[in-house]
């Protein structure tokens, strides 16, 4: 089993969890996910997920201009995003408990 396949299903909740701690721009979110142990996460997958969560109304977004280089686009969580994160956390906990029990029992 490939961890990247599993990651696809949980990238939303992972990104929401990272942004819940602190607002972040695209690569910053990638770096924090990798630092948490999700080494295989792809840049473009994270940027796309941020965009999709923003379109879904779970994130806010603002642009921070830079004097020296290109501007950065920051994403932050909002109430809807927090509600989504809570719901998905519950689903994940139930799912992982089920899977743990199943795998330990066999």
């Amino acid at each position, binding site marked *: 089993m490939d961890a990247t396949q599993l990651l696809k299903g949980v*990238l939303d909740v992972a990104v929401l969890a990272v942004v819940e701690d602190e607002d972040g*721009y*695209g*690569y*910053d979110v*990638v*770096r924090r996910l990798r630092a948490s142990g999700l080494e295989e996460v*792809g*840049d*473009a*997958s*994270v*940027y*796309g*997920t941020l*965009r*999709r969560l*923003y*379109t879904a109304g779970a994130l806010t977004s603002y*642009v921070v201009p*830079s004097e*020296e*280089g*290109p*501007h*950065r*686009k920051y994403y932050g969580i909002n109430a809807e995003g927090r509600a989504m994160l809570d719901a998905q956390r519950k689903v994940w906990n139930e799912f992982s408990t089920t899977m743990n029990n199943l795998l330990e029992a066999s």
Partner: protein
Amino acid sequence: MTTSTVTPEIVSFARGVRAALADLPADEVDELTDGLEADLAEAYAEDLQRELPDPVAYAAELRLAAGLPVRTKVRHGALGAIGDSLRDTRRDIGIAIHRNPMLSGIADFLGTLRPVWWVLRAWLATWLVAAFFGSEQGYWFGGTGWFFVLAAFIVVSVQLGLGRWQGRGIATFVLIGNVVAILALPIVKAAADNGGSDRYTIGFQDGVSAADPEQVSGLTIQGEPVTNIFAYGADGNPLRNVQLFDQSGHPINLFGDSTEDGVPCAGESQDCSELVQPATLETGQTTFNLFPLGTVPSQWDDSEGASVPIPGAKATYGPAPFVKVPAVMPGPKVQPTP
């Protein structure tokens, strides 16, 4: 936050990514790739060994994660889609024809007649434009200007037919134009066959004018319907109750054959609030040639299915154009032919 330099490779990579997303709306592409250069610059500043991936694959990953549809062939709007499906149908028919030797021979023969079609469709286009401006006349056009338009359309049509002009949408335009032209042919024929006679038929009497235009022809002067006649004597004073006949002895009837269907409405009002007052001859016949014609206020009667005079209303003459006209000077007398 680290500040990093955006290298030319990153700029070119980002351009490649945006190009691979070009089928999406422009603002969606902007939203999706906003800050891309900064993110990439930072990522590659951290790890100098990293190589830039394939921009198309990168764009596909971005698109998939953002929940956007996979890249589709860029269509040029609804018109392009119609053109594509028509072209597909034509291709299928073409294949079917070329499998059959007889149909194939007919198709080749028709192919040699294509220039005739090029001229025909140019004429059709001119006719349709002229008809839009009301300048069509039978199968042709009123005014020489339209023949210059026809000449210009023939040039355009032949150039298109020879494939001299290539470009996005031209093939679709020609295809749709041909279909419209074929559909328009019977319309042009019907209009041209009906045309002419009803050009000068003025619908001064709604309801009756739905009948054959040839039979509704009342009296008109220079295209304007004559709704009443006022006679004046040699002394210049108005005459009342004058019976008028034409050279053949027919009573002058301003309303033509429409009076056979009943009493015509006076004037051009839509609601028919006034009817013409017919006169009755000593023979008992009803006539409409007693001038000036009187009118009587009317109302719609459901049981009759027609407008009827309001009971008790009196017929009046319409306002005469002149109270008195200049009297005639005595001159040589004109004798009637014995």
